[in-house]
């Protein structure tokens, strides 16, 4: 099996005071090893729910989530997570924050080795001078960089990101896209990226999945045929523009509106 992530017919409903709220309905998706899968969809359609299912934080009502050929029943050490909120621990320095997953996953690893690993990543994202600072001393973009380092410090097979760049300004966001691209070149991982930004999905994704409105299934899959060493400029090519058009149309369908004519 060469699909690292395989989601088969997953349906899930939340039990709320007003009765069950079906969120996912027969969702299928597959991500081959090493691929970067961007997921877009209308707000509230169940994207965050999807990340929690892939991470094993919840079990779907029906259907199966497979990681590395194993059925996901509970959280696994080979997953990394990043959120819109960088959730750095304020009482730890940046270095200690990045080390955190290693304390869980590899408790016996010598401290020096953990720190060396963290420094290596901080260097990659341009935070080398900030290892001993507190999160409160960093800008939002820098905190998100640190958070990314933490999510991959233990070399996870799968990196799950839920709108990690959503709260950043447009320029910082583009900087972080490039950081992400460079990280991936250095440290190959398979990724699921939830985003609201279509340009982001095209810049980072090998495939982009559009989820339908709630209860959601995978409505459309776009293969992104851009070179691996993309630059922001690649987003202004006719191919990219065409893909952005298609995605926009699909989002409108997912939102239940008729696509605009163009």
């Amino acid at each position, binding site marked *: 099996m060469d699909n690292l992530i395989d989601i088969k017919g997953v349906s899930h409903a939340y039990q709320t005071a007003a009765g069950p709220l079906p969120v996912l309905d027969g969702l299928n998706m597959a991500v081959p090893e090493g691929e970067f899968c961007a997921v877009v969809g209308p707000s509230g359609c169940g994207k965050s729910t999807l990340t*929690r299912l892939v991470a094993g934080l919840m079990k779907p009502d029906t259907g199966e989530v497979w990681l590395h050929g194993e059925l996901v029943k509970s959280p696994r*050490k080979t997953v990394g997570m990043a959120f819109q909120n960088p959730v750095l621990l*304020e009482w730890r320095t940046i270095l200690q924050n990045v080390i*955190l997953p290693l304390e*869980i996953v590899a408790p016996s690893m010598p401290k020096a080795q953990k720190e060396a690993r963290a420094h290596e990543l901080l260097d990659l994202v341009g935070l080398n001078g900030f290892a001993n600072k*507190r999160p*409160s001393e960093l800008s939002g973009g820098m905190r998100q960089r640190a958070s990314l380092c933490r999510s991959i410090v233990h070399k996870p097979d799968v990196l799950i990101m839920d709108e990690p760049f959503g709260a950043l300004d447009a320029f910082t966001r583009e900087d972080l896209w490039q950081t992400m691209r460079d990280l991936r070149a250095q440290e190959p991982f398979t990724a699921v990226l939830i985003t609201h930004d279509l340009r982001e999905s095209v810049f980072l994704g090998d495939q982009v999945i559009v989820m339908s409105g709630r209860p959601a299934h995978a409505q459309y899959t776009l293969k992104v045929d851009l070179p691996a060493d993309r630059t922001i400029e690649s987003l202004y090519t006719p191919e990219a523009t065409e893909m952005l058009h298609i995605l926009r149309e699909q989002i409108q369908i997912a939102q239940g509106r008729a696509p605009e004519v163009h």
Partner: protein
Amino acid sequence: MLRKIAVPTIAILIFLGLWELLVYVNGWPNYKMASPSDLPPAYGRYSHLFIEMGWQTLWRTVAGLLLAVLVGTFIGMLMGFSQIMRDALYPLLVGFNAIPKATLVPVISLIFIGAHDFNTILMAFMISFFPIAVSVGIGLSTLEPEYRDILRSLGASKVTIFLKIALPKTLPEFFGALKVSVTLAFIGTNLVEIISPHQRGLGALFKSGETNGDYPLMFAVLIALAVLGILLYYAVVLLEKIFAGWAERPAS
């Protein structure tokens, strides 16, 4: 640093000056209101009693407070982690907290006759654990799910998540509550010392001043209580600086 000490010192001196002036201007006799200048002789006459009784009050307050920290944290954890526990315990706690503790003094001294130390500590505990339980409970139950998820997604146990994230994250709230509790515990100790006649603690010294019509002694006790209260409070502030200093934002 100098300013940090000088400003409050000057404030206290001004306060004492105003007090002295108030008594002087009104021409109040000692049995109406003592003035600051009456206090040093009172301390001089009873210095050994102040030290002995002050120590009695202090150690029982601290013991009660420690108990409140342990039990309060435990109840807070129950309420923080379980919605059912929260629903079950909140009304009980609020009701218990609403009971004026003075009414409990005769009750507990009847239940535990003669166990003066225990009674006093118990009262200090009962009056002071509530803020701790509530703050720990709220701190834990309002922890953003992402904080838990970064460790839970790695398969970390509940205990690990509590120790590495939930506990340190609630420390600022905990110390905020502890600052309230420390004064409450102090009130609890003195309540028992004044109401139940066991001749121990600053409260009892106050009572004996009252019985003997020694008003300067009563005021001297009040001031001694205030000083002890300030000491305890700043001990908590010091602990807060050590363990939760990270929560303080640099002034800008």
